[in-house]
């Protein structure tokens, strides 16, 4: 399997570490998020048969965290983006 890192190009799986579901955003602080919101963030995940966003870390490469859109039924990767606003630094 290969992931196309936006910076380094297509690289084999051995350069990456899986980082879990990318579907949730950490509740802010102090914020109004109660225990239920935190339980949801930490433990609850959708498990679609189809496209799914997940975090991958290019730990063996440029060490960017990536958001990968991957189809769980056939493993095809539709999109890879830098996680976070690094994306705008990458173009320069």
């Amino acid at each position, binding site marked *: 399997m290969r992931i196309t890192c936006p910076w380094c190009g297509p690289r084999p799986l051995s350069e990456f570490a899986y980082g879990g579901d990318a579907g949730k955003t950490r509740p802010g602080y102090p914020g109004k998020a109660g225990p239920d919101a935190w339980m949801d963030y930490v*433990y609850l995940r959708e498990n679609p048969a189809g496209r799914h966003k997940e975090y991958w870390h290019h730990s063996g490469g440029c*060490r960017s965290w990536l958001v990968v859109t991957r189809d769980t039924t056939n493993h*095809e990767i539709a999109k890879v983006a830098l*996680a*976070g*606003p690094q994306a705008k630094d990458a173009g320069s």
Partner: protein
Amino acid sequence: MTGQSHRLPQGGLIDRAQTLSFTFDGRALSAHPGDTLASALLANGVHLTGRSFKYHRPRGLYSSGPEEPNALVTLGTSGRTEPNIPATMVEVYDGLVARSQNRWPSLKFDALAVNSLLKPFFPAGFYYKTFMWPRSFWCRLYEPMIRRAAGLGALANEPDPDRYKHAHAHCDILVVGAGPAGLMAAREAALAGARVLLADERPAPGGHLSGETIGIDGKPGAAWAGAVADELAAMENVRLLSRTTVYGRYDGMTFGAVERVGDHRAPDSSSPRQRSWTIHSDQLICAAGAIERPLVFAGNDRPGVMLAAAARSYVNRYGVLPGRNVVVFTNNDDAYRTANDLAGAGARVTLVDSRAEGEVAARALLPAGVEAHYGEYVAGTKGRAHLRGVTLASSGRGIACDLLCVSGGWNPTIHLLSHTGRKPVWDEATASFAMTDPGDGAFAAGGAAATFDLGLTLREGATAGRAAARACGCRLSGKADIPKAGQLPAYGVEALWRVPDAMSKAQGSFVDLQNDVTVADLELAEREGFGHAEHAKRYTTLGMATDQGKLGNVNALGILSELRDMPVAQAGTTTFRPLATPVALGAIAGQARGRDLRPVRHTAMYRWHESHDAVFTQAGLWLRPYYYPREGEDFAAAAAREVHAVRSSVGMVDISTLGKIELKGPDAGAFLDRLYINSISKMKLGRTRYGVMLREDGMVFDDGVVARLGEDHFFITVTTAHAAQVMQHMEFCHQVHWPELDVQFCSVSEAWAAIAVAGPNTRDALARCVTGLDLSNEAFPFLAAGEGRIDGAPVRIFRVSFSGELGYEIFAPAGSGAGVWRAIMEAGEPYGITSFGTEAMTVLRVEKGHVAGPELDGRTTAADLGLGRMMARKKDYIGRAMAEREGLVGAGRQQLIGLKPVGKDGALRMGAHLVNELGAVGPDVSQGRVTSAAYSPTCGHFIALGVLRDGRSRIGERLYAVSPLHEEQVEVTVTQGVFVDAQGERMRV
């Protein structure tokens, strides 16, 4: 050519000028370069090559390719012994040693052939219904018996002296198979400028052309193939891998392949034996051809029964006549070529065609003298160690013969199109499962696409090559140059899954030859409710042998569909998974074996430890000194001496393996505030602080030391075990959660060697080698951080203590690490400074009650560990919210406590459970567990840290520490979690 009774006087692609010697079951035989072991055995008239798995039936060569189910041999000697190799894939070299398998005492007189007589008792799945009584017999009798009878070949249990390697390759287009389709595809793609990798499992290109008499552009097929291959070899953008099987396709167009670099020569450790490849490609062209399927009837497994195309390939490619009186039994036109070629080589041929006379167009191809029967079946065979004759179904007539060629049609080889989950579709016209839609980036051409006409195959290959090149962004010019193929009969297959039961007994009709699965077994499976393809496979073991059902799967699906009265299209297939053919584990391991399985990591002081007799332990990938035994000391004595040295004078330990991270930037402090439970940004310059990090679910993740070296400059240490995870976590927090924080950080674990020096005499010892830093208690109090020099090297010094004694952690640039270590050793000599290892370090920290890895196992919170007061109230940090949830606060939590045995000699063990009384069983009996245990020379008895339900309010209680696995139970007293200097005075002097 003495002894090669079945070698034809001319013909074949072998080198008749040279003769090779080899042995089979100790018998000396001869062959020629270009022979496989299979062709050489046939040339020498050897028809019996093995015994079947379950019934030990005599078996002979069935095919000429990797699909061979019967002729599995063991090659090599001593550590090079390799079992279960198909003789059809072995290239003969001078001195080759081969042995048959699964027979005792010999191939001819196999004692276990008695199994054959007991066949009625060994139907499919018999072991689900037997071997159950009496229970005690299982371990004593049944299991050893089954174990001895199981399997085909045997391993040598000696180390393999051969070298294996692993290599990477990248290409635009991977073409699998260098037959007519693959060669055309590779050429067109290469001419268009694509980077092409062409892999073929044989030593030379040509695919099935090598075994046929058909010509291309007026040349023999093999010669045409050779010329195209030469053309490709001269092109810079083409890489040819011969003797290479692409065994698996994985996600993202990644492929696994194995190249048999040295298997065709005498073993030689100076070059690698095999090389496994990881291939990354953009497009795949599957030109892997097709595999012929047998016909199913009683006695279809005798030595002398062979696939039709294989029989003619022995004639055409190897110059061997596998039989002199031949019957060809077929349901399609392709096998007529076999009748033609064998008759041309001088055999007497009889043809039996299951189709009605009027439908057979190829009849015109039959040479004169070939007796043909239409609308007829072979119902049975005669002979034991070798075929003697067949019986026709309708007439009951017997025909004497020594070779029966069978053809039930062709199955496209679609593994690589299916490994990623795509299912093939039933094609009625060719009576085969084909991948009509290979999906994006993949193409099939030729036999793999269920195209069995050579002219169409050549065209298909060219089309696929051009399409793949276009898909890669290449520009195509001109038109493809398609050569002219010789004419062949049309296919005309009529599916015949088995000769009907009335004519041919189910019990003797083999569907899966290697696992001895018969039609009767499939009928049984269906009767018992396991008629679905996936169930029938597991119930009967059909398709589960080393040949993975290449000859039997499709016939089985046909038979099952008839039994279940549904169209074949609905019966479905089982799932194709890598590996398509067996691969030696050595090839997959490559260089990663033995000591090189994983990398080893050494600190800068490794050589000093080695030369001072350290006994090492593995901490992850690191080698760390465990203890340094002196003359006459065992483990316990050495550890005790080392602990004593630290408590009474001074000791030093290599802690370079700690993770270290350097942070800079205006928001460095604010960032650390959000990672640690305690406040960091308000730390003073030149100070350190013990920090604890949580996971987002509120459990403790890691601990370490934070040092503030400047306004915007921090240096943190984290545990050896979590160094990589903490770094990853921090990068995640910065890139995903708080990218607005202006902080830059990187790992500097390798840049700094680290030494912990501790003991009452430490200050005096260090004062003799540290310059540029006042180490007095007033100038450099507990938790101070500063810089100085040792042996000329700049060092960072933190006054922190893991052991509870006066202690310092010294960080030196890694290149100076060994020199600084020696300088400290020298400076401490008057005080008897002692190097200590991880065992003494563990004892010291348990004596002090300092938590470490075993206490931070992901089940404990900061409050559990007595660190609740460190948790800041007014800032956000990872884990803050979840640490406050109901289940993690309040009564019933397992809290950190100390334990000591009631009897002075009691030994405590990590992992032991804490129970109120002995003998009680049940899930709630365990009150907690021992997390860290050690013999404390300082206390004179075992001590331990543990977690205990409501532990902090149970000090003084007596419990039992039990380990049922070790049959141990010790009475213990619950104590505070510190055994030496509870007030913490010694580290503050």
